[in-house]
């Protein structure tokens, strides 16, 4: 009896995996065939990138500031208050910045893509595009996934810099450190192995955000409720993927660089 209940669930899960693989292959095939939608791609870069600048900037600045304020008492108790800039820069550039910014982007971008494509499905716009002979995957999916893959790393880099500025303000609330000294300390501890793995994983974060948003929107059911479900499911799944990718990235990075 129990087996009868479990099997359909696994079957549905496996079908979903199969659908996602099929969707991914369709995406790959459409990058290279039938012409690239440059104008839509640029529009998506603007929508996804430029329109997220303010949100990412403010949250990064606050994160940098809060992190310094929280770290300070512990470092002071060890007599290491001077380590604050270095501690902040390593933790922010390597881990906290990319992951938190990717989660913010998942909330803003994946939900927006999922809701937009889900609503296009409900109002038969996707069907209309398909029966007109146009290719909705090429126009809607390829452009959005590539735009998130490029713009999330750019937003992450920008957020890292702004977060470090937030840290500078955080230090100067209680201490007195010059701008020059702060950034000399911040940069002195960073090297190639801090920047590159963090940048590479944000590329994967961006891809996951775009892919999940498009997949959930494209495969939503035909009902108004399904638009909300697509948006919600896109955020949850993309956030989960960000943590999975981060866990894998940490393992790979530690094997390659931190032996």
């Amino acid at each position, binding site marked *: 009896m129990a087996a009868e209940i479990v099997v359909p669930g696994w079957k549905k899960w496996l079908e979903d995996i199969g659908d996602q693989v099929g969707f991914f292959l369709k995406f790959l095939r459409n990058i290279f065939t039938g012409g690239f939608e440059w104008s839509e791609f640029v529009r998506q870069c603007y929508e996804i990138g430029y329109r997220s600048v303010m949100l990412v900037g403010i949250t990064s600045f606050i994160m940098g500031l809060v992190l310094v304020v929280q770290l300070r008492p512990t470092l002071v108790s060890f007599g290491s208050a001077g380590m604050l800039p270095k501690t902040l820069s390593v933790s922010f550039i390597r881990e906290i910045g990319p992951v938190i910014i990717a989660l913010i982007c998942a909330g803003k971008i994946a939900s927006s893509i999922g809701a937009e494509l889900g609503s296009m499905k409900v109002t038969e*716009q996707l*069907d*209309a595009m398909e029966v*007109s002979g146009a*290719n909705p995957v090429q126009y809607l999916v390829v452009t959005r996934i590539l735009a998130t893959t490029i713009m999330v790393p750019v937003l992450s880099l920008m957020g890292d810099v702004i977060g470090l500025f937030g840290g500078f303000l955080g230090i100067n609330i209680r201490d007195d450190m010059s701008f020059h000294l702060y950034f000399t300390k911040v940069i002195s501890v960073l090297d190639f192995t801090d920047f590159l793995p963090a940048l590479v994983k944000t590329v994967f974060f961006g891809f996951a955000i775009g892919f999940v948003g498009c997949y959930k929107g494209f495969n939503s059911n035909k009902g108004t409720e399904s638009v909300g479900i697509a948006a919600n499911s896109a955020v949850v799944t993309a956030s989960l993927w960000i943590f999975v990718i981060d866990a894998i990235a940490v393992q790979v990075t530690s094997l390659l660089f931190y032996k």
Partner: protein
Amino acid sequence: MDEGKSNTQQKPPAKNLTEVVIAIKGLKKTFGEKAVLKGINLELKRSENVVVLGRSGVGKSVAIQCIVGLLKPDGGSLKVFGDEVAGMTDGELKKLRIKTGFLFQGGALYDSMTVRENLEFPLTRVLKLKDQREIDKRVEDALDSVGLLEAIDKLPSDLSGGMRKRAGLARTIIVNPEIILYDEPTTGLDPITSREISYLILRIQKKYKTSSIIITHDMECARIAADRILIMDDGEFIAEGSFKGLHKSKNKIVEAFFKDVL
């Protein structure tokens, strides 16, 4: 099948009514355990308007979605311009879709684009036109045909239901399709606008020499636009004929459709 009498409506004679553009034989479609189409047969001739009447959920829209390849039939034969749809490659299906326009119930306009951009979309993406002057001319001609030129730079959200359907129809005819499939073109509209859309369908048939299948339960639309009417019930066609012929039918389901028609 209940045979109606010959068409007596005052409409211009259709051109070359003998050539079959869509031939459906024994078409079946099942969703889960529910058989939606139970082996329907239909022939659409060139420049002919066929209206399919039927209650909601009897499989009317499923039938026309199979014609453009949006749904895959489970059995039977479906030929458009002599070619079997089921065996078509992506390229062949694309060519078929250029020749077969589809008007969705709500117009299905792309809501992030203006009316002009909606109409330019199939020209630039499907027909790959580059000359902006030709594109502008075709957009203006199509909008002029549906009487919507003044709304060219408006967004779909600024249009009324009737205007949205007109804009959707303009986007459908802009690629000069030989067949147009209308999915409930007058649903949700007031009687006056419904009549305008029905006459517009007739004008499009005359001007562009299109063959059409019109899915509806609007009897006024059927009276105005139909050369021939098919009545569908429970996944099958149960009656066929002209509006006047079916009006006299003794079939109970047909009678139910025509009982309030004067």
